[in-house]
């Protein structure tokens, strides 16, 4: 298949690449672009481990084709914080023991950092609904909810 040229922004940096037309954004980000935080847990949009921000909306990147990001803005968890300056949600996850095996965590933090930015007054029920697209098999979620609330409070 002929490759397709795409130009987009990845974690704040302009990027142009040749991509397979049938490649998912998840595979492109993980296998080609080097953003290995984007995890594949199901490849069918059910588990949320590959969640990224696309034009500031959380999406499961396994349900987006790589050419679809032309001219758009993509943010993975690598783009949210660094060791020296972690995102408040990343910091709160560490402090509230919200991380166990860690495989769901990049996607979960992408979703919750979006919740913190856009729905800071969400009730517990709304928080639970907003994060229900991100599955975690280890923690039981309660520490993650506490972490988000602490990050919102600041």
């Amino acid at each position: 298949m002929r490759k397709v040229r795409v130009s987009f922004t990845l974690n704040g940096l302009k990027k142009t690449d040749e991509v397979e037309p049938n490649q998912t954004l998840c595979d492109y980000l993980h296998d080609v672009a080097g953003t290995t935080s984007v995890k594949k847990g199901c490849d069918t949009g059910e588990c949320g481990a590959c969640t990224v921000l696309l034009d500031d909306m959380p999406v499961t990147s396994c349900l987006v084709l790589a050419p679809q990001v032309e001219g758009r803005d993509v943010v993975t968890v690598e783009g949210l914080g660094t060791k020296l300056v972690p995102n408040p949600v990343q910091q709160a996850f560490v402090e509230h023991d919200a991380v166990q095996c860690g495989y769901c965590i990049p996607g979960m933090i992408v979703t919750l950092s979006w919740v913190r930015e856009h729905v800071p007054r969400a009730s517990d029920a709304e928080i639970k609904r907003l994060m229900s697209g991100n599955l975690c098999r280890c923690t039981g979620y309660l520490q993650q909810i506490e972490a988000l609330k602490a990050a919102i409070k600041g």
Partner: protein
Amino acid sequence: MTAQKLEEPIRRLEVPRLDALEKALGETKYTTDNVEEDALYVRVVRSPHPHALIRRIDSSRAERVPGVVRIATARDIPGSNYIGYVVQDRPLLCHDKVRFVGDSVALVIADTSESAELGVQEVKVDYEELPAVFDPGEALKPGAPKIHPGGNLTARHFVRLGDAEEGLVRADFVVRGTYSTPIQEQAYLETEAALAYPKSDSMVVLGSMQNPFMVKKAMATVLGRAVPNVRIIQAPTGGGFGGKQDAPDEVCSMAALAAWLTKRPALLAFSREESAAFHPKRHPMIFDREMGVSSDGKITAVRASILADGGAYASLSERVLFVAVTTAAGPYEIPNVHIDGTTVYTNNVPMGAFRGFGKPQASFAAELQMDEAAERLGMDPAEFRLRNILKAGSTAPTGQVLTSSVGLEECLVRARADSAWDAKRRTGPGQGEKKRGIGMACTIHPEGLNGEADAATASVEITAVGQVVVKTGLTEYGQGIHTGFVHIVSKVLGTSPDRVSVVMPDTDVVPDSGPTVASRSTVFGGKAILLAAEKLRGKLAKVASEMLSCPPEVIVFEGDTARCQGRDDGRVGFEELVSECFRRKLNLKEEGTFVKPLPFWEAGHGDLSPSYTFAVHVAEVEVDTETGKVEVVNYTAAHESGTVISRDQFESQIIGGVAQGLGYALMEELILKDGIIRNKTFLDYHIPTAADVPHIRTIIVEAPDDFGPFGAKGVGEAGIEPVAAAVGNAVYNALGFPIRRFPFTPERVYEAIEERASRS
């Protein structure tokens, strides 16, 4: 479920998990994050039939698919094709017959995963279908299709204490019932993966796993003399829950075989569907159970027979059955016990290890029947349990006199108080369509490998610059165990935790500490590490005593210094002390080994372990009798696991275990029809989301004994064990009758309500 107010915020951690920040930043490299450009991709050709002879495998068309480098079948295996934990009955690649839908037949090795996938479709296998058996009861009948040369019996176990027949006759009444439990899928978020690198005379495999030394053994078996050295490195592992106990033996061996045949790095990573089709799951079990009770509320006897479906290969079935059989009577004083258990081969997906390991099943049958007996007695179920509960000095239903700490009664008393049990039982289910119910269940968990000898070795080393390095084969896959080890070492040596690090398990670097299973890591690994650290402290104390002029016995290590007890004048910093040791050419590396000898077990009774952990859970549910929907609205989990090493991680283990248990109780059931799994993806096999987990109140009861490090016991599994039973009893309380099979899905509960109504 209705959102619960999270009224008790979880406290901030004193020592965060070692790997938490790296994971939160997305920097942690799991197996598939390490793939280099020259790696080949491996896909597995799987059987579409539950039971069939392989007449011929034709790979000629597959070999011509562009990008396909090689096809591998059983004939390409240089060593032995047969591996397995307990019984070596599972071929890495089937050559004469297949025994379940998904059984592995051939490997397609290609430049890209797409080419490998196309190649899989072109491998033509000529099968001759055989009659199959899917029902464990049918599998043992004469004339049933024979799955393995020795027949379909995998294992039997039994417990005998006193005279159950006599105990049942003498009882004032006997409650009887048949209880059955579903197949549960581990559903770890990271599916199985292994990356193999061929070297000139060795094979290095990086993979997602619980037990690198077990993988090493299996791989050495498969590669045989062709590869003298195999080295296994555990990559950060995205969940295990027992599912990555033996499955990685095969996944890593397949990747290694591909790498050995092609002399190139090879990656094998399963899709979600393959993962569901392949790895061993929680056994479905059927319990026929009767319990004799006297009118004053004492249990006089328990008699039960257990039938487990082990699926197509033995995996851990024999061990799981042993645990189910030996805990089937429950944590109660019962003078007469007669338990028989059988696990059989069928043409279903194999069953094996899953957190709880036979106890969630046994607990469901035992604890539901406890409530049925309490109803007959007209006694509160908490009260009935208290009359029979195990205490220190009690004789367990296996005949063992419990000499170590038993905090079960305190768990029950506190769970009862904190859940407002008495008031809620009095209030009753209510008059409306939505009925409230509250239920309780207990669990008993023997420490370490059950009924087996157990041992762990670990080393602790201090470097010239005062860093403390812990080496153990016990793996981190989310439990936080390595952080726990840091707590232990820093406590013994009086250093700050950030001075201590734990090496990622690599079979060339770390000692074999036994498998990371059975909630044994803190107890066995932790104790081995404690022993090694104490030896180092002894060496340091000797040098410090000369530096500070006081006897070594009175040297105190704290705050990264050593000082003489009762004296404030002199102290020496940890780094200075270590430098002095190095000047004296002292070896600051020590090993510790902790051994549990083979416990006495004979003729159906004996000792399971020197130490046990306990838990009592209380679930509160709302059942919509119009729709059958069960909602857990409140949950209390009281655990006794000796001394707690890290409170936050302890609570995290309990909350995570309860959440998995709620999935098991309410929604998780792998559905097989003629051996075909009908729900392999998260779309149709539902696990709890954040919206399904209610507030979980954790209660920690500390009852240390001298077995584990600082009196600690294990906590990894107990959290899941009583959950289905507690929910089952809450549903029973809401509806007024027990439902003896779960998960309590709306359909099942609705049908049970309808059936009950039509009978009365």
